[in-house]
């Protein structure tokens, strides 16, 4: 019997066993739209519980099948093309908000719960997960954690690593393990919630999570101002950061066809906001424009949709030092022009998002050079969307001298590389 026949038999036995666990209704053949970066899996499985999910994962691991965990599927293109993909393990049915302990400012939710649904439940008690994730209508708890997605509110509230206080994981061998819990302050044992945040599902499948919450703001105000160039924008951002203002978000938006604009978000009481608006206008000078709505805070998400028609484009997330955002933007402008159109949304934390539109080869070489510049200053660049034909550019860049340690961690958690094989840094 040749190897491919044997593999087919294993797969069909696996499929039969999985039907036993989740019932036939929740197992289906994968279709073209289930492909991940062009790699076509065979099966989509939708377990109905944490235990079912762990059992399916264990079976797949035993059968040597490669598993891609999937939430809302909004960020499946982040990371590298999978080395193998047999089974999509979907959390779509694990979608409950388990408990909103509003008086304790905590919530627990299953991995497949969308961020929008979670926020809706929390808002009933005037609270929120202080996270402005991408595509919240579809993005899930497990997905935002695994991709470490955060937006402009990070400046004040931190990123997911600061908001997640507990997780339950299903490991490739079927182990179900929890770490952390429902209290905000807790130093018992290793902080596995942080370990799996941003791990792209390569260590285990997150099945549920606990978060600390924040009150919804009583009032919010946004002030914007257009600056002459990015150096001026940087100067203002630094001045605002150096002031005693208690802003919640601060970003620079600019592009090939857009003068730099600074947006500042304030949240708090009417009295507090009025006073701060006056102070920020002094820093910004005559060009300050108070805005009524908060639409400017969609800028990060709009980077994906801002193009003309079906032009090919790339999106990347960059990390620079907060005082060197202008340099990063100037670098991108220099590397892109005149061949590609570019736009950037950069936050005062030093994290920014860049969109490049143009011929694939020009976009790719600009990103390569941009990454090299960033890495020289100890920053990094993550490719989050790639045009067709740019498959070879690594999504992550240099992981530094701890890559060996990361591989050792991976071997401990998923020795057969069952989960998201090859999609993470250094081929993990």
């Amino acid at each position, binding site marked *: 019997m040749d190897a491919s026949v044997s593999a087919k038999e294993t797969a069909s036995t696996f499929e039969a066993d999985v039907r036993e666990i989740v019932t036939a209704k929740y197992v289906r053949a994968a279709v073209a739209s289930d492909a991940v970066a062009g790699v076509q899996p065979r099966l989509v499985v939708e377990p109905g519980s944490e235990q079912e999910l762990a059992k399916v994962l264990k079976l797949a691991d035993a059968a040597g099948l490669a598993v891609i965990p999937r939430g809302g599927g909004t960020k499946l293109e982040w990371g590298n093309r999978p080395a193998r993909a047999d089974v999509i393990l979907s959390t779509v049915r694990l979608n409950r908000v388990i408990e909103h*302990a*509003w*008086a304790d400012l*905590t919530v627990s939710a299953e991995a497949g719960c969308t961020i929008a649904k979670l926020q809706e439940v929390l808002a009933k008690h005037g609270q929120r997960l202080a996270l402005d994730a991408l595509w919240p209508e579809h993005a899930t708890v497990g997905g935002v954690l695994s991709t*470490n997605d955060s937006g402009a509110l990070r400046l004040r509230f931190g*990123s997911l690593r*600061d908001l997640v206080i507990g997780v*339950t994981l299903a490991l490739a*061998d079927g*182990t*179900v*393990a*929890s770490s952390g819990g*429902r*209290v905000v*302050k807790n*130093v*018992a*044992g*290793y*902080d*596995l919630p*942080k*370990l799996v945040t*941003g*791990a792209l599902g390569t260590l285990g499948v997150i099945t549920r999570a606990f978060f600390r919450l924040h*009150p*919804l703001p009583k009032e919010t105000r946004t002030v914007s101002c257009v600056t002459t160039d990015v150096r001026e924008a940087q100067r203002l951002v*630094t001045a605002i*950061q150096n*002031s*005693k*203002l*208690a802003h919640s978000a601060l970003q620079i938006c600019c592009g090939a066809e857009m003068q730099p604009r600074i947006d500042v978000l304030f949240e*708090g*009481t*009417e*009295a*507090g*906001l009025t*006073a701060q608006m006056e102070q920020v206008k002094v820093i910004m000078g005559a060009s300050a424009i108070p805005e009524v709505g908060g639409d400017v805070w969609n800028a990060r998400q709009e980077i994906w949709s801002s193009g003309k028609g079906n032009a090919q484009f790339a999106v990347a997330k960059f*990390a*620079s*030092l*907060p*005082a060197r955002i202008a340099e990063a933007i100037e670098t991108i402008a220099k590397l892109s022009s005149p061949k590609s159109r570019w736009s950037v949304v950069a936050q005062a934390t*030093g994290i920014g998002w860049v969109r490049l539109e143009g011929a694939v080869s020009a976009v790719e070489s600009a990103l390569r050079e941009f990454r090299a510049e960033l890495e020289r200053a*100890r*920053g*990094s660049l993550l490719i989050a969307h790639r045009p067709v034909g740019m498959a070879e550019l690594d999504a992550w860049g240099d*992981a*530094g*001298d*701890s890559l*060996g*340690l*990361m591989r050792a*961690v991976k*071997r401990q958690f998923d020795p057969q590389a069952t989960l998201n094989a090859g999609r993470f*840094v250094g081929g993990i």
Partner: protein
Amino acid sequence: MESRIFEELREIVGPRGLITSREELHTYECDGLTNFRVLPRAVLLPDSTEQVQKIVRVCHREKMPFVARGSGTGLSGGALPVENGIVISLTRMNKILEVDFANARVVVEPGVINLDVTGRVAGREYFYAPDPSSQSVCSIGGNVAENSGGAHCLKYGFTTTHVLGLEVVLADGSLVHLGGKTLDAPGYDLMGVFVGSEGTLGIATKIILRVVKRPECVRTLLAAFPSTNEAGAAVSDTIAAGMLPAAIEMMDNLAIQAAEAAVHANYPNCGALLLVELDGPVAEVAALMAHVDEICRKNGAWEIRVAQSEAERALVWKGRKAAFAAMGRISPNYIVQDGVIPRTELPNVMREIGRLSREAGLRVANVFHAGDGNLHPLVLYDRRIPGQEETAEALSSRILELCIAAGGSITGEHGVGEDKKKMMSKMYSEPDLETMQRVRCAFDPLQLSNPSKIFPRPRLCGEKPGEYVAHPLETAGIAERF
């Protein structure tokens, strides 16, 4: 063999960097938790990363366990030496290497004292936010090991929120860099798991910290309540009103008496004292302070003071920060406990602590970080009375069990260390603990770095990770996992 190794170690650190005399070794036999004592074989005092690497390489070759130590102020026995092991004291590595105001980053060596970081940046109106009560003596390296908190972590977060990068000597002597000056370094957040790992994953030799701009104003309100129930209700109402104060602290009557006796903070004599600190822009703080005042009065506060000057504010805090040590004024001996509960469980847990205290015939003073449900019950006893120490220890453990039963944690900031490793099995199931130890096995397969801490049973790193096995309590339907 002994002398050969010592000779080699002496060559690395020089004659003044090696302690082997029994007399001097006694200084290192315990940390802030004094009821466990182990004499190390030797204490090494390296003054550079290279020296730490060389020492650790010798340990690795000889399979000799080592324990890193900062200022030795830990309260869970995390820096307790291990039998036949050495202690690596980082106190000589005490330089602030870089202050980068433009990016609000400070790079320090592990022996730098917590408060000295703020001291260095205060001139430009920055501060280092994590503020454990021992901040005038504890080291940043120790803070990293324990993920130290403090009163202001309610708003500002813990040590882990403020550490951006680490240089770490692993147990085989190799050097790795985790995180960095920029955010979201590619790969796993190993820095996130290292902070709070209590010295079991290696030794941090360089730490990149984030410092924070001082708020425009700080106001501290002191409110006297008839009991902890009313004070607790005021805390809940404050949170429910959508406020996130910089700190909310509570002390019960016994703790107030002790603090008064020790530092004369001029606290009102009441059933429970609440200390609420708000910071931020002046107008914002003024509006919120009026609201907190109203909430306190509504819940029965009979005296409310707002510190009017920095000196008054310092005095208010002095009483709170001296509360543990102040117990010595009212009791010959005491156990400092550290547990966490969901804030809403406070009245129930307080009632139970009261009941257990009466049953045991021992007084319990209570000091809380009330905003985040972190309790510090202090069990008072007299060692000279036969059996009382054992009764006090049993009572202290029962209080932790209350915390677990309430859905909380066995430690909010002091760590597991040697002290609470047995309690870990009560809080976590076997698969939970086994999964955590996979991290240990990746970092330190020989388990040389602070072995026998945190986990009740070490996992053999060679063994194949086992499959999921339900906890006996779970099978019996008594407990479920979270």
